[in-house]
């Protein structure tokens, strides 16, 4: 995988498989502190206690379609290569994956096309996504809960709505990024 946004999409698939209805994604570029923080939290079924230590092994998977799991092990590998720490917090109410990396590390990947990742996830109409993006202390939040409240009976995937949301998302993202 070539950038962070792909890893995030991959980890979010775990949330979906854990039957989450809410996925919170936070990216915080702490340029002043030279850190990059990423968190993905869901309200899914959690990882059983006896499995937590094995989920980052490439040879562990819950799926039946193939014998190896790769998502978390690849993510952990990438985080540690950028002088980072990686943590899994999980119980029956959900799972949080947290990573803190060195911002100027040469092996740190680009955030990449995060808008594509978020809008892939938005296609899962039954799941709510709250995406928070911060560069130092400027902040942008994209929360499908409040969007869906306004949309009421109209689907978020309705073409005109999707198009507009994508444009707004990019606009807001760029405002925050310009602060760099």
């Amino acid at each position, binding site marked *: *995988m070539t950038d962070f946004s*792909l890893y995030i*999409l*991959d980890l979010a*698939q775990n949330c*979906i*498989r854990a039957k989450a209805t809410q996925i919170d994604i936070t990216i915080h570029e702490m340029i002043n502190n030279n850190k990059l923080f990423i968190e993905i939290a869901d309200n899914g079924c959690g990882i059983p206690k006896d499995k937590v230590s094995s989920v980052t092994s490439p040879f562990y998977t819950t*799926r039946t*379609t*193939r014998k190896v*799991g*790769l*998502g978390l092990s*690849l993510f952990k590998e990438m985080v540690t290569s950028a002088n980072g720490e990686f943590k899994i917090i999980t119980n029956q109410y959900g799972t949080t994956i947290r990573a803190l990396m060195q911002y100027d590390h040469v092996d740190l990947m680009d955030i990449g*096309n995060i808008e*594509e*990742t978020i*809008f*892939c996830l938005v*296609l*899962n109409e039954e799941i709510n996504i709250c995406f928070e993006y911060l560069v130092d202390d400027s902040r*942008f*939040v*994209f929360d499908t809960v*409040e*969007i869906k409240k*306004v*949309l*009421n*009976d*109209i689907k978020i*995937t*309705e*073409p*005109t*709505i*999707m*198009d*507009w*949301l994508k444009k*707004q*998302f990019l606009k*807001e993202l760029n405002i925050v990024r310009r602060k760099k």
Partner: protein
Amino acid sequence: MISLDELKKLRDEAAKKINLRNQKDGFRIVVGMATCGITAGARPILNGLVEEVNKRNLTNVTVTQVGCIGKCSLEPIVEVYDKAGQRVTYCKVKPENINTIIEEHIINNRVVTSLLISNYEV
């Protein structure tokens, strides 16, 4: 922040049009989006399909994503289900195939044989 007032206006406009639509009896397009799919380039395929469907204003198609389909080496995989639930599986789909799948399969109702899974395995 995203203007919820503006969103409300768009919503009301969309609500007027949606009454004219027939949402049932359509196609369902599904893209495999597990680690294998993502690594092989499934994300731009999914977004490309959504954009193409929207651009052509096809109201009888929903595009969505699933996890691992089980044929990791053949990703990106796109499955098309027709109204009867019949499934056609396309493998190693590239961005330049998006148009063909929409035009041939969805609009002209012709299977794109060159992308079929049967080209790769029995």
